[in-house]
């Protein structure tokens, strides 16, 4: 496939990187320095120019392209790029936007702006945060097969009942598969004898109920999250509060700008909006923010997010989630005490990549900074799995793969060794990065 990516920022480069091995990728960016660096670092064609310029797009070969991805940091440029591309090409267009208004318009009439698929950065980020809140102990949660299957990552602490157990000892949950154990950034496929040590992170795949019961088992008497404080009334902050309201939460939202606070208070009828500087400790103590189960920092500035998260943790907040714009900060933040750092660009890149992968891979989640992936695949007649029991098929599949879950006609099926996979089934597989390419062609 020929993929044209307009905008080689973090999102664009990250998508280009994941696609470069399998597809012909052309990257277009206005910044010639960026273009130069990409030319050398990735195996893609990089062109300097404006994506809304028809000549530049012709040079990028947009007429023969299968997919056009507009991923600059500017909404209007992205929409215009898709619009421009759709005038000269039948390519599938994907636009990245920040504003939820554009997404609303696009959802009302799909195909609006010449966009075939729209990805809203802020909304995706908010959704990712809300998923964390509904599964409080998880590090990352991704839904598959229309929500019938969930993949979740959990940190294993000293106090956790499964700490020090082997996978077969710990595996007492119905409809749940242990996929991998991440130890010091290294992905280890979960075998029966793999030991789950404290300090590692486990990746499990199962139906939502089993994931939830697993979550409450690994969590040592940690109560379900109820009291959430969102700090910062950015669009992400607003969307998080809004999504939480719809799930029956009554979050508190702290915003220091009076006008913005008033505006938010008018729009959020189920939240309590507080107008104050969230770095003021007396204020935080007066409002008992320390008693909150979770603090979500979405202040728009990474440094302030870190400050607030750490302050909240010091006051006794159970968990702190920070939105981090700078990709490199994610690990740093998590190292100094922020429980989860969410990077909107990573979330976006993940969503776009999921859409660009070969048609059969319908959904994807990236584990441990690209060292592994969880994919959802619809089984076709050519697949090595088709019509065979899993135990038998596994012999033809390289190591580094775990079949996590299966859905048949929208129903969850727990994969056991003797389960026969049928054509049309959706399988959710955990795949280590080094064998991904091989696996996606075989399955």
């Amino acid at each position, binding site marked *: 496939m020929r993929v044209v990516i307009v905008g080689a920022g973090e999102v664009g480069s990250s998508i280009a990187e994941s696609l470069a091995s399998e597809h012909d990728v052309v990257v277009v960016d206005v910044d010639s320095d960026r273009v130069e660096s990409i030319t050398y670092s990735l195996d893609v064609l990089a062109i300097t120019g404006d994506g809304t310029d028809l000549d530049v797009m012709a040079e990028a070969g947009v007429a023969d392209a299968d997919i056009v991805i507009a991923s600059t940091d500017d909404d209007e440029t992205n929409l215009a790029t898709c619009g421009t591309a759709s005038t000269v090409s039948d390519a599938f267009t994907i636009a990245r936007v920040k504003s939820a208004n554009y997404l609303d318009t696009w959802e009302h009439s799909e195909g609006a702006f010449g966009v075939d698929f729209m990805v809203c950065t802020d909304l995706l980020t908010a959704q990712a945060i809300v998923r964390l809140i509904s599964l409080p102990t998880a590090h990352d949660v991704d839904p598959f097969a229309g929500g019938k299957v969930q993949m979740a990552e959990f940190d294993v602490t000293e106090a956790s009942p499964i700490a020090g157990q082997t996978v077969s000892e710990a595996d007492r949950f119905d409809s749940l598969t242990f996929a991998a154990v991440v130890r010091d950034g290294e992905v280890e496929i979960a075998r029966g004898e793999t030991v789950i040590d404290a300090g590692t992170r486990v990746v499990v795949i199962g139906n939502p109920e089993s994931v939830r019961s697993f979550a409450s088992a690994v969590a040592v008497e940690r109560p379900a999250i109820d009291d959430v404080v969102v700090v910062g009334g950015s669009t992400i902050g607003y969307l998080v509060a809004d999504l939480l309201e719809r799930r029956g939460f009554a979050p508190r939202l*702290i*915003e220091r700008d009076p006008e913005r606070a*008033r505006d*938010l208070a008018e729009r959020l*009828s189920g939240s309590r909006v*507080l*107008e*104050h500087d969230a770095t003021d400790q007396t*204020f935080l103590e007066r*409002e008992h923010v320390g008693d909150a189960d979770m603090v979500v920092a979405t202040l728009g500035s990474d440094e302030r997010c870190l400050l607030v998260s750490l302050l909240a943790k010091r006051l006794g907040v159970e968990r702190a989630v920070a939105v981090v714009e700078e990709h490199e900060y994610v690990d740093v933040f998590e190292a100094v005490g922020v429980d989860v750092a969410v990077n909107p660009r990573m979330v976006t890149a993940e969503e776009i990549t999921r859409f660009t992968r070969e048609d059969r891979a319908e959904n994807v989640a990236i584990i441990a900074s690209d060292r592994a992936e969880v994919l959802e695949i619809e089984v076709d007649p050519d697949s090595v799995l088709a019509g065979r029991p899993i135990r038998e098929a596994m012999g033809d599949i390289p190591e580094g793969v775990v079949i996590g879950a299966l859905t048949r006609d929208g129903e969850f099926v727990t994969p056991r060794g003797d389960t026969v996979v049928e054509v049309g089934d959706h399988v959710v597989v955990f795949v280590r990065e080094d064998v991904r390419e091989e696996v996606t062609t075989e399955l």
Partner: protein
Amino acid sequence: MYVDWRASASLVGTVLQYLTLTLSIPVVVGLVYGDPLVPFAATGVVTLAAGTGLARLDPDPDLGMREAFLMVAATWLAVAIVGALPYVVAGNGTVAQPTNALFESMSGFTTTGATVMGDISFDTHSHALLMWRQLTQWLGGMGIVVLAVAILPELSVGGAQLMDAEAPGPGIEKLTPRIAETARALWGIYLGLTVLEIVLLLGLNQVGLAPEMGPYNAVAHGFTTLPTGGFSPEAYSIEAFSAAVQWLIVPFMVAAGTNFALFWYALNGDLSRLRQDSEFRFYAGVIGATTAVVAGTLFTGAGLATLPAEMAGIVGDLEPSLRHAAFQAVSMITTTGYASVDFNAWGMPSQMLLFLALFVGGSAGSTGGAIKIVRWLVILKSIRRELFTTVHPDDVRPVRLGGRALDERAIRGIYAFTLLYFALFALGVLLVMLDAGRVGYGVTGYEVMSAVGATIGNVGPGFGAVGPMNSYLHFPWSSKLLMVALMWFGRLEVLPVLVLFTPGYWRR
């Protein structure tokens, strides 16, 4: 001059010209009953002449915001003056005296229902004149200016401003893009409900449940229920009719105190608006609660040391207790002012509840007067907010009405209005007390307070000397003129009139 008073006066003239047409109704009644028609003919000539003269002041009136206030306030005063003429020309009874006639006319148009007629009977007054008295309330109910906006094309631009100044409640609700269509829709609903009530009253009469409710009475009461007026050609108000009539009038009074926009939505198939409207729910709750408590005090005879003859059939009897409680609570809350019984005989607890109801009022966009349910709702909600923010000073908490956040300026306006309303009430009480003392008229403070509350709130009857079966006749002329002003202020919700008396209005 920074106010183009000619434009305002010209439009007042146009309204007067149209008002002449309405005189045809008492003329028809007069023809049927063989009454003298001179009072209406003379009024017609004077009104038409005055109207035409005023209309000539400015052949092409252009209304700004200031002119709109002047026009609305002046219209109501002019209409009340013209409406007093038939009483004076007819020359019968106490209302022939000009001050009394003006009081009766203003009380009519503002749908107050306070009367200075010493003897309400066909022995003293003609059928035609008493029908004119009923008609003034019907014309004033949905609003003379709203009616003018509905029919006069030249008011289409400034129309929203005019209706805003006249319509009850904070702000108006445009139902259609064109204000004239909105005005027509409101008048259409108003007319429809009036006709429905008349038909149902006649129906009761036909099946024998209301022998006294003949065609004349049915029309007369239809004319004064929907505008929350309260005038009746019967000296004993609704007490003169059967229990069935009293029960039937209750829902129509409730409807009159409801926001007419809700009926419009209901007619367009959107019944959920009526169910979900927070003001309507609060309104229904207030009516229900007041009725229940009043019924309880009536049933038990609370506050009554001895049982007066009037209460004999009520205390200890469930249906009459409930009926009179519901009727009187609804009548006072919606500011109608009908009486199904002389509540002067009631125990003090029941009376006090009705007295407090003088200040409640109907819904915004209804024909009711007083402070209005929606303002109380906003005040209660904002007090609840104050209590919360006292403990949580950083909380940003908009006051919501039906899910929509209210502008802080609107809330401030509601507080200002309510405070001003009570200030005027207090000032009125003080002046009337002083005036009564001047002429040696022995009224109690309670009676004066009820009289002032009932006139500024456009309710009608008060308590004691101004009770439902008595009249305002014995107040000195100066107090009556003060009450005329209070009714005028009250109908237009104080501010549009009061603003004319500020120097800033007339300056640049």
